[in-house]
């Protein structure tokens, strides 16, 4: 970080156009002093790790051993070479993350939107319902996971017991067989985070000007048509935001799998970040884990760019 104080170049033009508050001249030093505490944290725990992670990925890096030999791109090559020790478990975990993301993201875009639409009116108790729906989100994933592991227990769990009582199969192994484990993991994640996405949608719905709905009604649009032509386009920026954060959250899913299934059956529900954490922080194969986290990150960034592009393209289509 630069600690040198530089002289402010006077910018008479700018000062003429937009009169800025007095005492601008002392700003350089003051600004860096204000920024310093945060920037120290930011440099040490965000910027440095990004570079260090890349560096670690080029080594056979064990935190507990003094020697950390340079291996070039071997860690990356191994992750892509079938038959290497890391290939199978890594891609298995990427597959698990992929399956989870594929099912949880669409549901977490659509269901919270539906809930937000039901909530988007003035009715008695509205804030109470909103508070209740959001509540699970303030519980940590460990609490949610432990609780649902109990409810979904194959033998003594309440879920199987009630399914049995209404005549449905009551012995599903929710946490140790697939696909039930996927239904459990996705379902619990929806239960946990539905309120979070819904709250963001509700705020977005309130930003849509009432006049647009009035105009649509004047044009003879019914509720369904108003939804397609006013609500959805008006929500586009919010929907894109929800989609992006949900993809990132789903692709980083760890706790549900760690607590509820512990990867079972076999390693089928072990997610990518679970494998990365286990490999890097428990088995201390940090080079392999760092390389894997770069691959996961690049995949995620690519996906984000695609999502961004799709929303942009749809926006352009409707604007034309």
């Amino acid at each position, binding site marked *: 970080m630069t600690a040198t104080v530089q002289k402010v170049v006077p910018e008479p033009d700018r000062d003429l156009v937009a009169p800025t508050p007095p005492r601008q001249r002392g*700003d350089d030093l003051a600004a860096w002093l204000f920024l310093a505490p945060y920037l120290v944290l*930011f440099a040490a725990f965000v910027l440095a790790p990004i570079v260090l992670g890349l560096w670690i990925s080029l080594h056979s890096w064990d935190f507990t051993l003094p020697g950390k030999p340079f291996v070039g791109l071997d860690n990356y090559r191994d992750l892509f070479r079938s038959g290497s020790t890391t290939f199978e478990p890594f891609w298995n975990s990427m597959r698990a993350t992929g399956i989870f993301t594929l099912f949880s993201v669409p549901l977490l875009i659509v269901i919270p939107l539906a809930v937000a639409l039901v909530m988007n009116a003035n009715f008695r108790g509205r804030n109470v*319902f909103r*508070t209740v729906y959001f509540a699970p989100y*303030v519980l940590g994933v460990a609490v949610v996971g432990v609780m649902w592991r109990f409810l979904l227990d194959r033998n003594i769990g309440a879920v199987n017991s009630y399914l049995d009582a209404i005549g449905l199969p009551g012995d599903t192994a929710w946490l140790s067989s697939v696909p039930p484990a996927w239904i459990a993991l996705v379902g619990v994640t929806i239960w946990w985070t539905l309120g*979070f996405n819904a*709250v963001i949608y509700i705020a977005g719905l309130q930003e849509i000007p009432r006049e647009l709905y009035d105009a649509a009604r004047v044009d003879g649009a019914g509720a369904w048509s108003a939804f397609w032509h006013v609500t959805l386009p008006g929500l586009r920026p919010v929907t894109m935001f929800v989609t992006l954060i949900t993809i990132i959250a789903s*692709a980083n899913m760890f706790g549900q799998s760690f607590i509820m299934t512990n990867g079972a059956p076999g390693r089928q529900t072990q997610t990518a970040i679970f494998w*990365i954490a286990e490999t890097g922080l428990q088995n201390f194969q940090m080079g392999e884990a760092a390389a894997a*986290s770069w691959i996961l990150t690049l995949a995620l960034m690519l996906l984000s760019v695609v999502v961004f592009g799709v929303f942009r393209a749809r926006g352009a289509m409707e604007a034309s």
Partner: protein
Amino acid sequence: MTATGRFVRYTILIVLTALFVSPLVFALATSFKTSQQAVQTPPSWWPNPFSTQAYQRIFDSADTPVFRWFLNSLVAATANAALVVATSALAAYALARLQFRGKKLVFGLIVATLFVPPVILVIPNYEIVGRLYWLDTLLAIIVPTAAGAFGVFFLRQFFIGLPRELEESAFLDGANRWQVFSRIVLPLSRPALATLALLAFLTNWNDFLWPVYVLFSPENQTLQAGLSTLQSANSVRYDLLMAGAVVASVPVLILYGFAQRFVIEGVSRSGLKG
């Protein structure tokens, strides 16, 4: 709204409420059951006899010192929230109000990291925290997560929205940057600072992956990491697990009950900016 419409709306809302509330009530009830009753089928909704056995057991056990975990979580989340609010407020003020060289670069760099998935930081941060000799200490839970960019954004947005007039007249009266910040901007920003503090506290209290791997000793766990220890030590003692889950959720639920408006508004505003 028609009567049918209202009926449909309330039916949906009440069914959803039941889905959200009943698991929590059931977990709470189970925590007051005896170990045998906790695993009875069909499940009962009322503990009979009412027992605090599970709580006594988890509070007394040396391998799972739940009360100690509770204190650890409280200290870590409070310290983290204070650190986040202090550093973010200072930085956000500079980015919102001061003109300086390199502002675009600093802001751009901070923006860019918002799109970096957290997974990329886990392995190298372990190495860094290890080099600082912070492994297995609460410092590892308090400090690194305070480097997130959310607080800076959140407060910068709020500061930009404040009316400039008060600040300007204070300058004319001879106040310096620090005085304007501490005596005018901060008092005006109390709701935003409280919201950020709450969100930081909740996030830190609930953080899971990081504490699971950086804390090892039983007495140094946070509640969330401890729950997984509790689970591996007592895999089918659901009375104990539910008691642990209740201890881990009651503080955040109380906090949420008092301040839910701040929490919800803080979250919903994040979407409007995105």
